């Protein structure tokens, strides 16, 4: 699918491409080791690339879903660690707050999130709770003037850098979302290192060891945490990660094709061998198909179509698998060079693997899509 972008959309995507090329590509390996620095967060904010889901009157630079997706692809193609910032900070936290935050919360946080002066992270997963997100073990109870939060979160992307966390906690059967500022007493942050993917994305474990917050920090309302707030965050995240996967796959396709055009064996360039052509052909087809699904989901999101959420799941599931396949082939084409730590093929291969796990694993997406498919395409299933 070749979607004709408007000049305005092209300009934004072009800006993201130029930023990735000039500010990210030369330092990708450095960021993978040391983490994406604050200066890059602020630079993205100055480019208007962190305020896509923030209203203009609150300092945002709103983008339609397709343009935002293409921006995510351009950044993700070059630097997955920086792309995590777009997914978690600019999409999940800013987008969810823009949707369900109180007027005061929006005024207090959204301008700073859009500029990058404040970094936000989504503290959902826990040591014992991943896919079963509704059953987090982090607890809250009433305290004087508000609530006290007790629990541990893990795999919090950009958690080690974040100034504010969007946290899901439970009290009995009730789940509620809260904003928790990092500088509150008894918030402890422990960076997670030596991980396969997202090594530079400031992953952290966050301990809330009896953190008191005012009731004004509730996002949405009491009890709406999982059903509405968290679901919104996960929906936004799924869409973002779908595009991230397209970016990784596109990056791998370009690396594979470039290398195959340069490397010679048996007196021929690699791309002249039929079996290499087959890998490139499959990659082209896969990437185009994944991007088409993402664009379709984006167009539905902009129209607020009821199927936008399920189409985002479909796009995420497919694109993540495509990223895994294409990066594996790219690494194969690179031969031993593909195994070198810090090389493009190796980095994309590692990053692709994470995309089938985060924001709803492939298997969770399959369960959701399976239920949808059985209803949507099964004969007579709507009878009651």
């Amino acid at each position, binding site marked *: 699918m070749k979607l004709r972008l408007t000049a305005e959309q092209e300009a934004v995507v072009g800006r993201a491409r130029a930023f990735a090329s000039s500010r990210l590509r030369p330092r990708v390996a450095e960021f993978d080791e040391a983490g994406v620095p604050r200066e890059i967060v602020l630079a993205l904010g100055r480019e208007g690339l962190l305020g896509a889901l923030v209203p203009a009157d609150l300092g945002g630079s709103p983008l339609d879903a397709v343009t935002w997706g293409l921006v995510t692809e351009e950044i993700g193609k070059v630097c997955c660690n920086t792309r995590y910032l777009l997914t978690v900070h600019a999409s999940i936290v800013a987008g969810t707050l823009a949707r369900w935050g109180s007027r005061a919360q929006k005024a207090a946080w959204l301008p700073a999130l859009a500029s990058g002066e404040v970094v936000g992270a989504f503290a959902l997963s826990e040591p014992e709770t991943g896919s079963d997100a509704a059953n987090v073990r982090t607890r809250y109870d009433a305290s004087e003037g508000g609530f006290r939060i007790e629990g541990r979160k893990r795999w919090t992307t950009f958690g080690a850098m974040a100034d504010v966390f969007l946290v899901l906690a439970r009290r009995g059967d009730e789940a509620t979302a809260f904003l928790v500022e990092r500088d509150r007493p008894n918030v402890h942050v422990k960076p997670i290192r030596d991980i396969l993917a997202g090594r530079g994305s400031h992953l952290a474990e966050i301990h809330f060891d009896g953190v008191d917050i005012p009731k004004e920090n509730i996002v949405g309302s*009491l009890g709406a945490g999982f059903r509405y707030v968290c679901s919104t965050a996960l929906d936004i995240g799924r869409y973002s990660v779908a595009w991230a996967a397209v970016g990784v796959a596109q990056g791998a396709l370009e690396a594979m094709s470039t290398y195959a055009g340069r490397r010679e064996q048996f007196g021929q360039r690699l791309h002249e061998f039929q079996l290499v052509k087959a890998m490139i052909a499959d990659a082209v087809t896969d990437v185009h198909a994944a991007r088409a699904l993402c664009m379709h989901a984006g167009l539905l999101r902009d129209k607020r179509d009821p199927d936008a959420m399920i189409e985002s799941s479909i796009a995420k599931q497919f694109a993540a698998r495509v990223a895994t396949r294409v990066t594996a082939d790219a690494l194969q084409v690179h031969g031993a060079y593909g195994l070198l730590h810090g090389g493009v093929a190796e980095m994309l291969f590692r990053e692709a693997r994470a995309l089938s796990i985060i924001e709803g694993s492939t298997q969770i997406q399959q369960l959701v899509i399976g239920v949808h498919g059985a209803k949507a395409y099964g004969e007579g299933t*709507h009878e009651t």
Partner: protein
Amino acid sequence: MVTVESIRTFIRENMVSNHRNAVLGDDDDIFKLGFVSSMTALKLVNFVETECGVTVDNDDLDVSTFSTVNRIVAFIERKLGTTLAR
């Protein structure tokens, strides 16, 4: 224009599983009955906003607001200041 029947139809068509013989009363809690998932809950909010032209705000997210057909109808009627066709 949305009607009470179109709300019933939406919920029926978006139930989690294929409750072929399920009977949904207007006061039945669709969450407690397991008829809708969190994804469906958001879809329901989207439906109410796009089909009825009302905005669901953060303080409208009371657990019970969208839990039954009658409560959804009451919410829409309160927001619109009018009565939906039965």
